[in-house]
């Protein structure tokens, strides 16, 4: 019933490769032997039922956790991420659902959080506030989204606009890979639309997107390929051209496990 177009061999060096990634939490095995490649510029979905290991995998790729076994390669070179900030500085940005923004701080402060621009005045590094506001506005305009005032608090923004601020933060780091874990889970229809447009926008600018989502329609709309996890293992790695949301749910529910 589903188009069976499993993609193994791919041309060129993948921007990101996972090789035999495993993770155990004490006696719990959350992931075992997960391997796949991500090509530069593609939008890849990671799908699977609750407890399949999606978040664990993303925590490993984003630098929030270290794998128990396996290797991560960035553009062919093995890497280890000491922290999310370390991964970010190597071009891998993760958009977390809510924890990564400071709601009571301004948009500009959030875009530059932890890496504020400074200018030296008589040898003293002072915040380059105007430059940060200008650059934050530039990053947001790349997302074709109007956020009027860089001095507004993030708590004043809608859920979709907050995702945009988080993405602008990734752009500020010239991220090559943007990872989003359930970006639309907490959003209404209108805001979901906005976030899907944001994903397409950054994908069209050549940024690689890794999307975790429960919503099959969202996945089908924005992703070109899906890696399907089940019980911590990869059970399918397939291009999505010609797939419907129903096809995808059937595979995930295990009616047609690989």
């Amino acid at each position: 019933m589903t188009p069976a177009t499993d993609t193994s061999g791919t041309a060129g060096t993948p921007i990101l490769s996972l090789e035999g990634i495993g993770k155990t939490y004490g006696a719990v095995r959350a992931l075992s032997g997960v391997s796949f490649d991500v090509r530069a510029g593609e939008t890849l979905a990671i799908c699977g039922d609750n407890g399949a290991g999606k978040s664990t995998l993303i925590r490993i790729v984003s630098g929030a956790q270290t794998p128990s076994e396996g290797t991560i390669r960035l553009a062919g070179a093995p890497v280890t991420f000491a922290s999310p900030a370390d991964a970010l500085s190597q071009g891998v940005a993760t958009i977390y659902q809510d924890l990564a923004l400071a709601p009571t701080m301004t948009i500009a402060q959030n875009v530059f959080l932890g890496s504020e621009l400074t200018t030296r005045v008589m040898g003293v590094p002072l915040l380059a506030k105007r430059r940060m506001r200008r650059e934050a506005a530039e990053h947001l305009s790349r997302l074709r989204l109007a956020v009027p005032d860089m001095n507004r608090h993030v708590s004043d923004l809608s859920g979709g606009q907050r995702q945009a601020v988080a993405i602008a933060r990734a752009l500020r780091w010239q991220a090559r890979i943007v990872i989003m874990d359930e970006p639309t889970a907490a959003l209404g229809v209108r805001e979901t639309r906005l976030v899907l447009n944001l994903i397409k926008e950054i994908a069209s600018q050549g940024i690689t997107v890794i999307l975790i989502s429960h919503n099959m329609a969202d996945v089908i709309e924005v992703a070109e390929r899906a890696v399907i996890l089940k019980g911590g293992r990869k059970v399918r790695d397939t291009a999505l051209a010609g797939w419907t949301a129903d096809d995808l749910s059937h595979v995930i529910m295990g009616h047609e496990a690989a």
Partner: protein
Amino acid sequence: MTESTAAAHSDAPPAPGVRLKTAVARYGTAVGGILVFAVFALAADNFLTVGNQFTILRQVSFLVVFSLGFTFALTAAELDLSFAAVASLAGVVCGGLVHHDYPWPLGALAALAIGGAFGLANGLFVTRAKIPSLIATLATASIATGCAFAITEGVAWVGRWDRSFLWLGRGEMGGVPVLVVWMALAALIAVFVMRQTRFGVWLTATGQADEAARLAGIPIRAMKVWGLTLSGLCAGLGAVLLTASLSSAGPTSASDFLMKGIAAVLLGMTMFEPGRANVPGTVVGALVIGVLANGLVLVGAAYYVQDIVLGLIILLSVALSASVLTKAAFTV
């Protein structure tokens, strides 16, 4: 910004009602403070005299220095309940050294070192031993008080001390008490650090959203240690000024400033940046507390009225600013 897409709905400027509410939230307390000032000006004959205004400013200057320290700690979402006891201890050591004819800079340095050391210890207890700051600083306050009594054997150092030392607390510069100059300098430096430096943003982010700050690579434990250490340093600095001004130092010389300092900072959290400890708010808060304390005496209110008023101010301020942070910081 350029053309808008889906988010255009949020472009509209806030309605006049919203703007009024924001203005009231930001400046309401400051206006209230001016009203309090006006009431005392009318009710007490000698309130408005230049002499009395300088008296208020002198009192407020210690309060501002101590409160700035509490502001730094609270900005990182930690409480420092030890600053007054640490200041008394620092004052006793400073006063003791001056009293025994050591050079006064040694005494001043010793006070700063004691303040800084207690602040650092508080920071390490909180971040390493994971003791909530409410408990950790209550404990170090007790230790500091005990040490102060041990050093003086319960009495106070009183003396006719080196004049250049006393000048720090009693001198004038162009007709202005030096204490006011120190206070203004301390407040300006604090505003500068909080507004213009990366340190200030990191300290704020640590207190406002520690998880986001951590994910952004901000060393949140170090920032909390810094916040508490700065509080200790301010306690040491305030102790030097207080000792020089009083020309004496006793084991409870600064204890009055605990409630006043907390009240000043919490009152300040209802102003300028509501819900957040902020330097201008702290300065105005301290001024309001100073005016209240002075005015209540001048209108002949009984000594206990001030304590009740301070308690009410603390309750009202926290209820008003109703910020997640305030309540979080007070959660054990």
